[in-house]
C-alpha cells in the first residue's frame, strides 16, 4: 500500500473581504529548530510607525483579521500569521505531540525573528490568541509599543470554573468528537452571532478545517487549556497572567458582551490586570467581536493613530496610577465641591430638608446623621473608594441618604432609567463592573433576576428566608448600626468618579455617562446661578432626579405623594399639596407630569390655587416642552416664570429659555432653546466636517458644548468617547442647530436625522413645525429616503384627531400615500422640496418621554414603502 502525500490546500481565491495580495507563505524554524511552513496575511507596508502583530485563537485563522488589514493606517505593517496546525499553516505530523502554550509563544517569536520584525510592535489577540499574543508581548517588552485584546481570558478568576462551553469541549470523550471527528466546534464558533454572519463568511472560517486531519490542532488547543493545577500548561499560563502587571504600555480591550464563552468576569479580570486599558464594549456583539462589530477594526486603526498623535496618546500604566487631577481653567473651589458640605454644616438643624407631601419629612440633622452613619457602615462593610454601586431604589428619602452616604464613602453610584426596560437595565448594569448593589422592594428580586454581581444591600430589613433566597448581605438599618461603631471613611476628592448615569436610550443605545465629583458640583452651581436660587427657594421635585439636588443646593424640597417615576400620575391638586407642604417657591417637573397637571386643573380647590399662585419659577426638563403646554400652564401657575432648559444626560443645562423669550423669538428653523447659560459655551461644527466650529450665527451644524459640568467620559465606550470629544475639550451632542443674531440656539433635529439632498442638507424640525401648523395635521416627521448625499425628503403625518395610541417605539406605522389635497397642502408650507407625503396611524415615540420621535424608524418604514419593496 502506498501513501500518496496529499498537497496541502491553499487559501481559496473567493473569500469575502480577503485580499489575496496579503496572503504569503514563509518557511521558518519553530522554537525547536524544526523548519515549518507558515501561512500569514501581511499588508507589506513599510513599518514607519511599527508592526501590528495579530494572533487568532481557536478555531479561527488569520481571516479573522482581514478588517484590521483593510483599515490599517499609513505607516503600520500588519502581520497576521496562522498558528501552526491552524488555518493554512503546516499541519503537525500524526506522531508529533500537541504544541503547548509555551511552545506557541516561542514559535511566534521565532516567526517574528524570521520576518525581521525588529521595530515597535502592537500585539492584537483574540480568544487563545489573546494569551499567546500577550505571552509574546511579555517576552519582547523592549520592542512592545502597545497591546490590543479581544474577547479572551488570561486566567480563571477566583471561584470561576472556566467557560462552561469550553469545559464541555474539554471533556475527554467530547473533545475528539466535537473538535476533530466532526466540525461541530469549528462551526459552532461562527454560529454564536446574532444576527447570523453571512453564510460565505462562516464557510470562510471553516475552509481550512475540512477534514479530521486538518482539525487535529483544534482539539489540541482545547486540550491545552489548564483547568487544573496539575495541567502541563498551568504554571506557564498563570505566570503570564501574573506578569501582565509588568506591562507599562497602553492597552485597548475590545469586547463583545454577548459572548457565552468569555463573559463579564473575564473582562473585569483583564481590566484589573491592565488598569491602563481603554475599553470599548460593542453592544450586541458576541465572541467573534471582529465579525459582529466590524467597526472594531476602525477602532484599532483610530487607536493606532492616537499612539503617535501628541496630546492624544492613550494612557500607560504609570500615567493611570499617577495623580488623577487634571489642571482645568475653571478650577473648582475646593471648599464648594463636596455635595454633603451643607448637610454637615446643618447637622443640628431640626427643620425639614425633604418632605413627602401628606406623609413624613426628614430634618437636616436627621439626614446628616443618617448619611454619616451609612457612609461609615458602607465602608466597614467593604465599600471602597472607587467601587461601583448599582442603585435599584425608588426615589425616596432612603435614596437620598444612600446616594450621599455612598458619595461620602468615595463610591460611584450607577443609575439606570426604568424606561430602558428590564433587558436594557440588565445590559447596562451588568456591563458596569458593579461591586455592590443597593436595592429596595422589587429591586431586590430584580437584582438577582438580572444576575448582577457583588454584594446586595436591601433598603429595608428582610426576613431570614428572603435574606437567604436572594443572598442579601445587609440592610440599611444594619449598616447604620455598623456605622455607629466604625470610623468615618476617608473622603474622596473632586477628581474621583461619583456617578455613572445611563442615558434613557431615547436617542440611541443606552450609554453610561461618567461624572466626577467636580462635574456634579459644577452642575449644582450652574442650576443655582441660572435660576437664581436663594435660601428661600424651597422646591417641589416632580421630576425624580431633582429630589437629589436639595441637600447639595442647601434647599428644602418636597416630592408629591405619587410614584415620581410614573410622572403621568401627578395631578394639579397633588402638585398644589406638595407646594403647600413646604411653602415652595420653585417647581421642577417633566413635560409628561405637566400635561396631566394641565388636564386636571379644574379639580383644584381655591386654597390649592392660592398655593400654586405663590410659585415664582417652574422648570420643566427631561424632554422638549411644547409651547402650547407652557401657555396652558400660565393658568395653573399664574405667578411663575415658565422655563425650559436644553441639555442632555452628558451636560445639563446647556441653555435656558422662558415662555416669554420663546414668544419673542417667534417662528424659525427649529426649536428655540434660548441662550447658553452663564459658564457654558456652545459652538456649531459644520456638518460636512470642514472648517472650525462656529460660535456665531450663520452656521447650521452639530451642537458642541463646553463647560465645567460636561460629562467626564462614557463608560467602557472608548470609540464613542473619542468620537464625541472632537475637538478636544468639547462634547458633541448629536443634535443639529444654529445660533441666531441674538445668540439664541435653535435645535433642528438629531445629526443622524439630517436629510442630505443633492442640493444641501435639510433639517427635520423646521419642516415638521411648518407642516404641523396645518389644521388637518396632528404631528409630522420629516425624514430622508435614499442614499446619503442624494436623499429626497418624505414627510409622514398623523392627521389631527387620530385616535391616540400608546407610545411604542416599534411596530408598523400604517404608512400610506396621502391624498392629492393633503399632499399639496404639505408641499405648500414645508419650505423644502418634498418628494412624498405619507400618512401614518401613529409615530414611533420613546416610552420614557413620549415625545421623541424615532425618525430613523420612520425613515426605515417610509423607505420600504417608497422603494416599492
Amino acid at each position, binding site marked *: 500500500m502506498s501513501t500518496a502525500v496529499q498537497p496541502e490546500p491553499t487559501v481559496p481565491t473567493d473569500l469575502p473581504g480577503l485580499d489575496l495580495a496579503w496572503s504569503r507563505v514563509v518557511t521558518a524554524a519553530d522554537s525547536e529548530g524544526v523548519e515549518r511552513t507558515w501561512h500569514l496575511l501581511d499588508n507589506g507596508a513599510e513599518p514607519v510607525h511599527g508592526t501590528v502583530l495579530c494572533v487568532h485563537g481557536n478555531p479561527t485563522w488569520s481571516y479573522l483579521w482581514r478588517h484590521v488589514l483593510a483599515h490599517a493606517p499609513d505607516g503600520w505593517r500588519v502581520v497576521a500569521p496562522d498558528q501552526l496546525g491552524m488555518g493554512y499553516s503546516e499541519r503537525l505530523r500524526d506522531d508529533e505531540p500537541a504544541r503547548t502554550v509555551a511552545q506557541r509563544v516561542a514559535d511566534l517569536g521565532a516567526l517574528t525573528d524570521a520576518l525581521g520584525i525588529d521595530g515597535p510592535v502592537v500585539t492584537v489577540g483574540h480568544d487563545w490568541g489573546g494569551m499567546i499574543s500577550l505571552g509574546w508581548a511579555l517576552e519582547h517588552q523592549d520592542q512592545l509599543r502597545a497591546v490590543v485584546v479581544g474577547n479572551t481570558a488570561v486566567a480563571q478568576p477566583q471561584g470561576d470554573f472556566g467557560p462552561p462551553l469550553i469545559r464541555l469541549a474539554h471533556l475527554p470523550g467530547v473533545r475528539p468528537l466535537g473538535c476533530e471527528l466532526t466540525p461541530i466546534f469549528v462551526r459552532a464558533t461562527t454560529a454564536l452571532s446574532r444576527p447570523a454572519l453571512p453564510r460565505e463568511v462562516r464557510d470562510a472560517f471553516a475552509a481550512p478545517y475540512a477534514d479530521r486531519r486538518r482539525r487535529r490542532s483544534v482539539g489540541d488547543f482545547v486540550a491545552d487549556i489548564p483547568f487544573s493545577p496539575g495541567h502541563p500548561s498551568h504554571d506557564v499560563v498563570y505566570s503570564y497572567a501574573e506578569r501582565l502587571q509588568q506591562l507599562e504600555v497602553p492597552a485597548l480591550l475590545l469586547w463583545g458582551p454577548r459572548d457565552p464563552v468569555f463573559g463579564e468576569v473575564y473582562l473585569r479580570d483583564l481590566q484589573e490586570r491592565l488598569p491602563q486599558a481603554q475599553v470599548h464594549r460593542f453592544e450586541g456583539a458576541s465572541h467573534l467581536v471582529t465579525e459582529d462589530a466590524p467597526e472594531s477594526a476602525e477602532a484599532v486603526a483610530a487607536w493606532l493613530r492616537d499612539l503617535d498623535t501628541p496630546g492624544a496618546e492613550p494612557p500607560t500604566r504609570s500615567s493611570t496610577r499617577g495623580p488623577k487631577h487634571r489642571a482645568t481653567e475653571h478650577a473648582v473651589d475646593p471648599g464648594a465641591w463636596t455635595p454633603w458640605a451643607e448637610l454637615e454644616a446643618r447637622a443640628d438643624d431640626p427643620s425639614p430638608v425633604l418632605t413627602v407631601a401628606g406623609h413624613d419629612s426628614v430634618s437636616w440633622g436627621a439626614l446628616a446623621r443618617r448619611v454619616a452613619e451609612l457612609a461609615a457602615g458602607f465602608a466597614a462593610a467593604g465599600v471602597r473608594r472607587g467601587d461601583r454601586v448599582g442603585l435599584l431604589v425608588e426615589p425616596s428619602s432612603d435614596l437620598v441618604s444612600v446616594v450621599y452616604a455612598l458619595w461620602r464613602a468615595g463610591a460611584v453610584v450607577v443609575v439606570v432609567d426604568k424606561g430602558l426596560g428590564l433587558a436594557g437595565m440588565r445590559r447596562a448594569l451588568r456591563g458596569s463592573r458593579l461591586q455592590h448593589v443597593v436595592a429596595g422592594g422589587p429591586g431586590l428580586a430584580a437584582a438577582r433576576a438580572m444576575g448582577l454581581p457583588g454584594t446586595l444591600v436591601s433598603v429595608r430589613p428582610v426576613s431570614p428566608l428572603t435574606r437567604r433566597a436572594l443572598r442579601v448581605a445587609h440592610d440599611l438599618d444594619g449598616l447604620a448600626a455598623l456605622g455607629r461603631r466604625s470610623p468615618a471613611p476617608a473622603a474622596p476628592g473632586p477628581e474621583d468618579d461619583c456617578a455613572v448615569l445611563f442615558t434613557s436610550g431615547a436617542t440611541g443605545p443606552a450609554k453610561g455617562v461618567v461624572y466626577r465629583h467636580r462635574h456634579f458640583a459644577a452642575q449644582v452651581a450652574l442650576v443655582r446661578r441660572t435660576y437664581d436660587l436663594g435660601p428661600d427657594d424651597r422646591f417641589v421635585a416632580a421630576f425624580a432626579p431633582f429630589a437629589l439636588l436639595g441637600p447639595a443646593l442647601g434647599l428644602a424640597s418636597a416630592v408629591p405623594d405619587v410614584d415620581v417615576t410614573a410622572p403621568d400620575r401627578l395631578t394639579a391638586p397633588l402638585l398644589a399639596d406638595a407646594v403647600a407642604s413646604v411653602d415652595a417657591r420653585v417647581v421642577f417637573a417633566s413635560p409628561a407630569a405637566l400635561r396631566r397637571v394641565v388636564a386636571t386643573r379644574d379639580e383644584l380647590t381655591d386654597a390649592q390655587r392660592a398655593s400654586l399662585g405663590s410659585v415664582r419659577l417652574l422648570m420643566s426638563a427631561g424632554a422638549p416642552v411644547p409651547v402650547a403646554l407652557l401657555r396652558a400652564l400660565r393658568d395653573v401657575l399664574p405667578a411663575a416664570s415658565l422655563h425650559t432648559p436644553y441639555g442632555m444626560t452628558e451636560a445639563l443645562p446647556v441653555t435656558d429659555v422662558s415662555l416669554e423669550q420663546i414668544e419673542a423669538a417667534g417662528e424659525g428653523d427649529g426649536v428655540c432653546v434660548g441662550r447658553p447659560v452663564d459658564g457654558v459655551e456652545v459652538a456649531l461644527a459644520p456638518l460636512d466636517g470642514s472648517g472650525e466650529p462656529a460660535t456665531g450665527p450663520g452656521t447650521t451644524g452639530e451642537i458642541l458644548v463646553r463647560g465645567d459640568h460636561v460629562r467626564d467620559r462614557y463608560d467602557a465606550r472608548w470609540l464613542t468617547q473619542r468620537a464625541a470629544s472632537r475637538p478636544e475639550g468639547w462634547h458633541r451632542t448629536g443634535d443639529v442647530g444654529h445660533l441666531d443674531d441674538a445668540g439664541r440656539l435653535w435645535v433642528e433635529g438629531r445629526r443622524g436625522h439630517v436629510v442630505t439632498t443633492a442640493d444641501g442638507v435639510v433639517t427635520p424640525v423646521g419642516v415638521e413645525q411648518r407642516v404641523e401648523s396645518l389644521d388637518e395635521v396632528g404631528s409630522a416627521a420629516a425624514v430622508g429616503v435614499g442614499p446619503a448625499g442624494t436623499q429626497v425628503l418624505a414627510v409622514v403625518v398623523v392627521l389631527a384627531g387620530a385616535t391616540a395610541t400608546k407610545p411604542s417605539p416599534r411596530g408598523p406605522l400604517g404608512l400610506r400615500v396621502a391624498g*392629492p389635497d393633503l399632499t399639496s397642502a404639505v408641499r405648500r408650507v414645508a419650505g423644502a422640496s418634498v418628494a*412624498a407625503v405619507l400618512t401614518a396611524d401613529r409615530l414611533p415615540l420613546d416610552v420614557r418621554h413620549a415625545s421623541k420621535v424615532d425618525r430613523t424608524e420612520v425613515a426605515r418604514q417610509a423607505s420600504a414603502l417608497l*422603494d416599492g419593496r
Partner: protein
Amino acid sequence: MRVLVTGASGLLGRTTARALAARGDEVTTLQRRPSGAPGREVLGDVADPEAVARAVAGQDAVLHLAAKVDVVGPEADYVRANVEGTRVVVEACRRAGAPRLVQVSSPSVAHAGHSLVGVPAAPADPATARGHYARTKAASELLALAADSPELAVLAVRPHLVWGPGDTQLVARLVTRARAGRLPVLGTGAALIDTTYVDDAATALVAAVDACGPRAHGTALVVSGGEPRPVADVFARLCRAAGAPQPRLRLPVAAGRVAGAACDGWWSLTGRTDTPPLTRFLVEQLTTAHWFDQRRTREVLDWRPSVGLDAGFEALARWYTAGEPPV
C-alpha cells in the same frame, strides 16, 4: 456648430432639434417621414447606410435618438432599428470624421427589475435588461461606447421617462386609459419614480452635445428631473392636468403580475401589435422605485432642469385645455 439629430419625428428629438436651432446651431435631421423639424431634413431609415452617410457628412456632432420604442412586436424589428441603426450611425461618424456622437439611451438598459433608489448610472447589460426595447438599447449603448476613441468622442445619455405636451407615448396612453376609467393604481402606488419634462430633457441633450469630448466621453449619464414622486401622485397630477377623472381602480400587485403575464402571453401568441393594457414589464415599472443620483450628470453636463414638475404639469394642462394642438 453643425449638428445632426436622428429621430426628430419623436417628441424629444423634435424639441431638441428646435432647441439647437434656437441657439444658432445648423441643424440637420434624419427620419423616415417629414417631421416639421427645423433645418435640413434628410428622409431615410437609420439602418440604411447610404441615407445615414448623407446625413452625417460634414457634421460637427451627431445626436442619435432614432429608435424603436414600444412594448410589443417581434424582437427582430428592435434589433434592426436599435442595434443595426446604431451600428450604421457609428460607422458613418467614423467614415465622415464626425468628432462627437451623443448616443441617446435609456435607464432601462441597466434595470434588472429591482428597485433603483438614488443610484448612479450602472453599466448597460443586455443580459439582464427587461424586454426587447431595453435589451436592444443596452446592446446599442455598449456598441456606441465601444467606438469611443480620440477621433470620435462618444457620450451616452439616458433620459428617464420623458413626458410633456404632445407626447404620444407615456402621457397619451395613460390619459386615454384614465378617461376610460381603466387606469389602475397598482399596490400601494407609493414607489418613487422620477421623470423628465421634455424641455428639460432637451436642454440636457443640448448640454451633452457641448460636453461630449472635452468634458466627458466613453461613459453613460442618466438624465432626470431630480424630483421623484410616488406613482399614485404622478398619476393624480397627470389626470388633473388632462381633465381626466382620478384613478379609482386599485389592483393588488400580485393580480397585476398575473394580468401582465397573461397579456404578454396572449399578445405574443397572437402576434397582436397594438398596445396591451398591462405587461409584466409595466407592472414592474409601476411597483418598484426608480430614481437616480443626478449629481454627476449635473456636474458633467453643467445642466439643471429649468422647468420641473410643477411648471411642466401647468404646461400640460394648458395644452389639454387648448384642445391638444399639434406641438
